[in-house]
């Protein structure tokens, strides 16, 4: 599971920064394509348990069924996986957080928040490469056997399942805690490096492997409410900054320096533009404005459709509601409209802001435009209420 974890700077300085693997060394997969565990083997029992979990994921209400989105992610998985492509089933889950996970059976989950945060398909590939490396190096099995040493056999598989898959049990917080134990520091580093190797072999930019971490760190820095720290387990799990630094050194030593300029992948940009409304609405609903603003700045920089980015700047300012934010929101919605092809919501929320400031004529004008663009809007009755109120 790839998830951002940040620990205090004072701890960072105490962590080793030495590269674990020489830049020239080639990391090998431990299993061949099409791998199946042996019968009557502890691994086989684990597979059976995980297959049950996969059935639940397949029926999840949050599963993204849009074929375009699934095809996009599948194509990246297959390109990175190469000969292992057919070993994986990929499920895109609607969740604004940053996460991807892989079970030992080859079930991969990718959250939409990860897709929203990636600037290029290289960065998506970087995360996927990391997850595939966990799979081909049998890290889950190693971890299970390690955990088994300290546990009663009766609870082993249930706990193992949670550790390996991040299943959201009714005890969701307990599952979250167990996730922190999911892979050892050495395994994470191994997956980072083998993942980078696979990404490069698939002709993706290996420098994306650390760039995505740097972006996450910048987002965390901008956050008002920081994510919970890993606490007790921080000493056994490499943090984002250390991982980014190690990867950068390793990738630069092996593949040379990055291109001077980041060029956005047309395909990922096209994906973002096509799905931006849904992806960003979920992000806005998190009410985490520092992170949202950092994301918007990044999206603006990589060339996401300006009318969409400005619309969500408007949403973010309006909902944050700090001093001066109403005016900032008005400016952002106006920009969205000037950019061409704004979401109808730009007019609606501009109308509401003018209503708030007592500029009823402007409010009416924007409300009318909203209904022209969205005649079937489900809030039509509310808008018409204000239009009629002003007429009387």
């Amino acid at each position, binding site marked *: 599971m790839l998830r951002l974890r940040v620990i205090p700077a004072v701890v960072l300085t105490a962590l080793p920064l030495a590269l674990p693997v020489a830049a020239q060394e080639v990391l090998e997969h431990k299993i061949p394509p099409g791998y199946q565990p042996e019968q009557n083997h502890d691994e086989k029992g684990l597979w059976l348990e995980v297959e049950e979990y996969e059935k*639940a994921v397949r029926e*999840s*209400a*949050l599963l993204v069924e849009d074929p375009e989105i699934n095809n996009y992610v599948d194509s990246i998985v297959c390109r990175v996986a190469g000969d292992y492509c057919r070993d994986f089933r990929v499920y895109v889950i*609607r*969740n*604004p*957080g940053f996460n991807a996970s892989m079970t030992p059976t080859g079930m991969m989950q990718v*959250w939409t*928040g990860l897709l929203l945060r990636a600037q290029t398909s290289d960065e998506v590939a970087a995360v996927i490469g990391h997850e595939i490396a966990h799979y081909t190096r049998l890290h889950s099995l190693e971890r299970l056997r390690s955990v088994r040493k300290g546990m009663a056999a009766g609870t082993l598989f249930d706990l193992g399942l949670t550790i390996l898959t991040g299943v*959201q*049990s*009714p*005890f*969701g*917080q*307990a599952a*979250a*805690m167990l996730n*922190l134990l999911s892979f050892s520091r050495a395994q994470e580093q191994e997956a980072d490096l083998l993942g980078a190797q696979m990404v490069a072999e698939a002709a993706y930019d290996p420098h994306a492997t650390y760039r995505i971490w740097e972006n996450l760190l910048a987002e965390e820095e901008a956050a*008002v*409410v920081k994510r*919970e*720290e*890993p*606490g*007790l387990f921080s000493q056994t799990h490499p943090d984002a900054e250390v991982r980014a630094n190690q990867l950068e050194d390793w990738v630069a030593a092996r593949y040379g320096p990055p291109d001077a300029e980041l060029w956005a992948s047309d395909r990922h940009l096209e994906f973002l533009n096509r799905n931006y409304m849904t992806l960003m609405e*979920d992000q806005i*609903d*998190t*009410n*985490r404005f520092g992170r949202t603003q950092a994301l918007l700045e990044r999206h603006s920089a990589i060339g996401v459709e300006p009318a969409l980015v400005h619309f969500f700047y408007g949403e973010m300012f*309006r*909902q944050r*509601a700090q001093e001066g934010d109403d005016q900032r929101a008005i400016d952002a919605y106006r920009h969205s409209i000037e950019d061409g092809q704004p979401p109808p919501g730009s007019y*609606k*929320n501009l109308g*509401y802001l003018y*209503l*708030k400031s007592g500029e009823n004529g402007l409010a009416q004008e924007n409300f009318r435009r909203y209904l022209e663009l969205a005649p079937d809007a*489900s*809030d039509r*009755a*509310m808008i018409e*209420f204000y239009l009629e109120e002003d007429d009387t």
Partner: protein
Amino acid sequence: MIYRRILLVLTAYMLHGCVAYSLVEPGTVEVGELQVSPESAWSRASSAAFPFARSGTTVWTQDGLTLNRLMFIPAVPDGEPIFKDREGQMALPKFRATMLPNELEELTASSLGKMFGEGNAVVQTANLRPHRYGDDRGILLDVQAAVTDGPDYKGLAGAFVVKDELYVMLYLAAVPYYYEKDLSEAETIIKGAHLTTLN
């Protein structure tokens, strides 16, 4: 911090098993400063049932809280969320007395998403419309939630603001069956809610 969260969840689950219920008879009932008129009997759950409820919140149910619930959240002051954030990690949206209908709708959707657990549900709202609660102007809207490890929910929310304080009435029930079963009565109760005192 993680242990505190685990303890909270475990405690909530343990308490959930000991939730006490009291009967709400049909007729005119006062819920805080709100007056509502149920046509049939409901069960009122004790505060232990809902760890995220802010003080003064009342929760009724017909068949159990995971199947259907009718919540009354009275007099939320300016600057406070409609649910309680026990650890300051939920980033709950806060009510502002200047909020207009679009923002009350967003407040409802985002708060419900947090209630189900951030990332564990997609909450959508629709059909925002005006409604009068006694002498007070307010709104009605439909809600639905797709939840990662539970049934889907649908519901109806009503809200109005008086003297810079927000009043929320929220019906939420599992689909299929439970939502439809009590929708008519819940809608009557929510639409008929009003303050007990004249403003």
